[in-house]
């Protein structure tokens, strides 16, 4: 299944996961168990943090697409997410949450677990808003779907009674009816949820609809998680959520209409989100946890294109057997990192310096490290032309560490290589004056090697 | 007084008197050096937000230099193993002796002078050049590369700056028509030569600072490049001799400047002539010394090659032009 593959990829890139999850859920209705796993993972990730806003948007986009499309859509959402980050309307987040909830309702036991986690997170606050939205969606779905959904509403209602405003309930009922009507037509196809949403959105514009959703959400959340706390939070957040929900609803409605134009949908969503600003902000604060997953994984992308470019250019000119590995180092301000093969290390460095598209004219840092399994030389290069950094690494044999010198390329590598030679014993070929720069030629051993024993004449 | 002695019959008594006078003069000069050093430290301290000496000898640190000199005299006398010993020992003496000899020709007042030489100015310039030999000798004998470089710089600098120094003074000599320092002072009865010969004065001051090896021309001992230059290997009282020579020259050069350009012991205005000449001389002299100290705390050190350039390409032409102009103006006035 293409859906399965997507899920795996998504795991690698956190951002993609959230979207994928959203898609997966929709699909889940159609598909098997695998989808169920994905959401739960997403939830875990969500706890970590990340900007809720960005995620929300991504989710929103994903939803729209998901509704309309098949597998291809799965790819699209990941791109959308990137774009979505730029804006980060809180409303969008709420939607994402909503989708998640819907999925949960549809899916099996695992989904139920996931929500409960969410609820924990939700305690922090405004997550409630997002949930509310999700609940609204869920309700729609529930109408269409099987038995579980039926149960959920009933539970929801119970919970709702505890708090939610009566008015909200009334509205919810109204909305639900409207939705039900809309769905009745489309109910046959799960993929037509979008339409349902669109319809709902239209209605949602009326404040009543939003409220209804909020109420519904409250119920659902209570049901899914079984946590009354959530319900409370939801209740509090309902007002906010309502505002956000409206915005979202509108967005979704539009999205549903223009299924093909994700971008437009996003733009619209963003605009709405801004309108909802205050409410959205609150929602974000709360929903942060839920949304965290997509945002975190979305981060690397600013430098991802650069890495892709480097790799492309290198492979175009030098062939593809020179690079051992390449990745974005998330811990180090997302610096694109290339691991060269020892025999091509100099060649790649030379290429990085002289290629017009790369132009790394500045060697910022060079040093070695003893990793016990191997030695590693780490070079940090900078291109003043393109304002881009790259880290070039090479793994070399620990027992006879020898590597080409970069001194002919950057004079600045002269002393650092001497230092690496002095402290680690790495020999640099073609270095004009490799000497023990710090300790002196009489020193025995290389202190930064992990197996270094100080030499003492008297012992 | 001294004139009479000079023209009297040689004898034990006369020798004794000369010796005694010389000793007195030496003590006076040592006294001056002691307090010149203190003054320099105090003035520089004042200019550099510091206190200067303030412990030994009361809050003005009046005995600080005495303590310093005592310390130097008590220090172990070290001579590097590979040094040229005889030269190493004699170098400080060669450097110091001329500085003391030149003082003899300087008239402090119309009465207080040791030797009224008709070629007093020439005598001063000729003798003062000898000190450089002491520096080069010391630099060479130390068998140290820094010292050698310092000694060589001293020689080059002396050769370069002696010339503008003499040339600048020629203007004064032209106006006076005499090399006798007493005559030169007398010729300034109405107006000082600093006003008649301003260009010469500026050239002279610059060249004299260079002759004194003081900032900004302290290249032979430039601490930051050559560590201490020609006297890097000296310590104790040998080193003290070099320092002594430097400060005695400061005394001599300030006196000479006073005599040549500031009217010697003559009062500023004639109605102020109730103040003794010695006081006037001291005031002007102190002004010059202060100027030298002021230079020291203000200027960075000039670079060796620029120093030569400056002497040969700027100071010398200016001094020559000054002579030329002076000669022309003097002839014109004569015709009038």
């Amino acid at each position, binding site marked *: 299944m293409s859906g399965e593959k997507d899920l795996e990829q998504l795991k690698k890139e956190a951002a993609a996961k959230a979207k994928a999850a959203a898609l997966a859920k929709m699909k889940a209705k159609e598909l098997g168990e695998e989808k169920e796993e994905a959401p739960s993972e997403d939830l875990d990730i969500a706890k970590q*943090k990340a900007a809720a806003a960005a995620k929300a948007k991504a989710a929103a986009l994903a939803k729209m697409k998901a509704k309309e499309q098949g597998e291809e859509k799965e790819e699209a959402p990941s791109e959308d997410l990137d774009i979505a980050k730029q804006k980060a309307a809180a409303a969008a987040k709420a939607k994402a949450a909503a989708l998640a909830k819907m999925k949960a309702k549809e899916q099996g036991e695992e989904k139920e677990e996931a929500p409960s986690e969410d609820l924990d997170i939700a305690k922090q606050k405004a997550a409630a808003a997002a949930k509310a939205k999700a609940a609204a969606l869920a309700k729609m779905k529930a109408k269409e779907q099987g038995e579980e959904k039926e149960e959920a509403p009933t539970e929801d209602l119970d919970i709702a009674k505890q708090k939610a405003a009566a008015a909200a309930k009334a509205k919810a009922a109204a909305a639900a009816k409207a939705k039900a009507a809309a769905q009745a037509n489309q109910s046959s196809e799960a993929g037509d949820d979008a339409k349902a949403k669109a319809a709902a959105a239209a209605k949602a514009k009326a404040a009543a609809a939003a409220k209804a959703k909020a109420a519904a959400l409250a119920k659902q959340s209570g049901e899914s998680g079984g946590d009354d706390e959530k319900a409370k939070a939801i209740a509090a957040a309902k007002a906010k959520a309502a505002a956000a929900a409206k915005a979202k609803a509108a967005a979704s409605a539009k999205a549903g209409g223009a299924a093909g134009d994700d971008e437009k949908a996003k733009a619209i969503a963003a605009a709405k989100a801004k309108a909802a600003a205050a409410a959205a902000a609150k929602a974000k604060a709360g929903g942060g946890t839920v949304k965290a997953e997509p945002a975190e994984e979305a981060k690397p992308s600013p430098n991802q294109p650069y890495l892709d470019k480097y790799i492309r250019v290198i492979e175009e000119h030098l062939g593809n057997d020179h690079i051992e590995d390449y990745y974005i*180092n*998330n*811990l*180090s*301000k997302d*610096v694109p990192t290339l691991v060269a093969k020892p025999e091509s290390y100099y060649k790649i460095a030379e290429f990085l310096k002289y290629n017009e598209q790369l132009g790394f004219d*500045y*060697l*910022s*840092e060079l*040093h070695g*490290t*003893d*990793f016990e399994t191997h030695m590693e030389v*780490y070079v*940090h290069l900078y291109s*003043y032309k393109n*304002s881009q950094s790259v*880290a070039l690494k090479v793994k070399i044999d620990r027992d006879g560490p020898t590597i080409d010198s970069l001194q002919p390329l*950057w*004079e*600045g*590598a*002269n*002393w*650092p290589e001497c*230092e690496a030679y002095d*402290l680690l014993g790495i020999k640099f070929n073609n270095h004009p004056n490799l000497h023990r*720069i*710090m*300790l002196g030629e009489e020193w025995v051993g290389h*202190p*930064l090697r992990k197996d270094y024993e100080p030499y003492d004449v008297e012992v | 007084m001294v004139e009479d002695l000079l023209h009297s019959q040689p004898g034990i008594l006369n020798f004794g008197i000369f010796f005694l006078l010389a000793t007195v003069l030496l003590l006076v000069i040592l006294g001056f050096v002691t307090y010149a050093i203190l003054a320099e430290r105090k003035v*520089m301290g004042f200019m*550099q*937000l*510091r206190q200067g000496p303030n412990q030994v000898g009361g809050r003005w640190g009046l005995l600080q230099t005495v303590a310093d000199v005592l310390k130097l005299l008590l220090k172990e006398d070290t001579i590097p193993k590979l040094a040229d010993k005889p030269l190493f020992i004699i170098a400080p003496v060669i450097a110091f002796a001329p500085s003391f000899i030149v003082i003899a020709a300087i008239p402090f007042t119309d009465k207080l002078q040791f030797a009224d030489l008709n070629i007093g100015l020439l005598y001063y310039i000729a003798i003062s050049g000898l000190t450089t030999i002491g520096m080069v000798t010391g630099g060479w004998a130390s068998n140290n*590369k*820094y010292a050698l*470089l310092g000694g060589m710089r001293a020689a080059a600098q002396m050769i370069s700056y002696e010339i503008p120094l003499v040339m600048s003074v020629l203007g004064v000599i032209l106006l006076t028509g005499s090399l006798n320092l007493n005559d030169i002072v007398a010729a300034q009865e109405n107006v000082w030569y600093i006003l008649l010969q301003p260009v010469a004065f500026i050239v002279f001051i610059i060249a004299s600072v260079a002759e004194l090896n003081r*900032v*900004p021309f*302290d290249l032979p001992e*430039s*601490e*930051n*490049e050559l*560590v201490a230059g020609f006297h890097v290997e000296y310590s104790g009282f040998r080193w003290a001799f070099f320092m002594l020579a430097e400060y005695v020259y400061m005394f001599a050069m300030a006196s000479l400047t006073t005599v040549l350009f500031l009217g010697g012991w003559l009062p500023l205005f004639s109605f102020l002539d109730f103040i003794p000449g010695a006081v006037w001389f001291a005031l002007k002299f102190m002004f010059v010394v202060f100027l030298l100290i002021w230079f*020291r*705390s*203000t*200027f*960075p*050190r*000039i*670079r*060796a*090659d*620029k120093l030569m350039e400056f002497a040969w390409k700027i100071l010398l032409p200016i001094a020559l032009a000054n002579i030329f102009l002076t000669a022309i103006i003097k002839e014109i006035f004569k015709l009038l």
Partner: protein
Amino acid sequence: MLRTEEMLLNVGPQHPSTHGVFRLVLKIDGETIVEAKPVIGYLHRGTEKLAEDLQYTQIIPYTDRMDYVSAMTNNYVICHAVETMMDIKVPERAEYLRVIAMELGRVASHLVWFGTYLLDLGATSPLLYAFREREMIINMLNELSGARLTFNYMRVGGVKWDAPEGWIDKVREFVPYMHEQLKGYHMLVTGNEIFMNRVKGIGTYTKEDALNYSLSGANLRCTGVKWDLRKNEPYSIYDRFDFDVVTRETGDAWARYHVRLDEIEESLKILEQACEQFPAEGEILAKVPKIIKAPKGEAFVRIESPRGEIGCYIASDGKKEPYRLKFRRPSFYNLQILPKLLEGETIANLISILGAVDIILGEVDG
């Protein structure tokens, strides 16, 4: 022609103008340098080796001793590296304290450079003036951190001490005072003919050379490269301040002198704004675990120290000590160009060139 002979001259490791235990083996012909060979390592203390057995917080005092003239930036770079790895959000107030401390340190560092450089050139007074102002800064930092030079002030996640009462006002008052003093410096030194003779056109290199030799800081900016990590890769809260990156085009010691003095002005601008924006309340230390453990992986961060680009590389295996710690020490890289610059120069120029590079031996030797 006289027969002349080249001779070897050891400058340092004990020499008044090498700013520490730096040694140069010169081959000279008269006073002209034919070849210069720098020898370093006299102050190598093995900070990186020591750090492998220390917890992150324990390493911070060691960084004080690398660039002992501007220890605050050293403090910052290691904290910043760990924070980057652990993704710690530093509280606002702490960031402001850090920036103020670092900028004060930058001013102090440039003042020391100004004073000692002029002293190298034979002028004694500027040193005393520069140190008067520096003393005020050091007193302020002393009040802040409890130490005059080795501050050990920053921690992973924030700073150790909050600003004492009225401290910010002191900094605020210092800014206009320093502006005034700078004018005095310019009057005393900048226009001086002798000084210009010593620095103008001395130690010139091109932009290409500067990049090739991995120069950074004022040594790079003096060739016209508009590059300052505070501006180009903003860290901490530097993107909130309005300041310029000072550059000069000529690439000589004169340009470096101007870049540094003007950088004092820019730092004062930052200080002024930071004091304005300084939050009245707030935490000074983020919630960090008692024992700091950087996640498994590696990170390299670089920031702008007064001497250039100071970087910190940490490879962590998830334990409380770094697996490998490496500092990119700007003086070490900046000094590499020295032999090239000295060739054919005189000994007097050696001092102006070496001084203008602005090295700190503690940093060169690591």
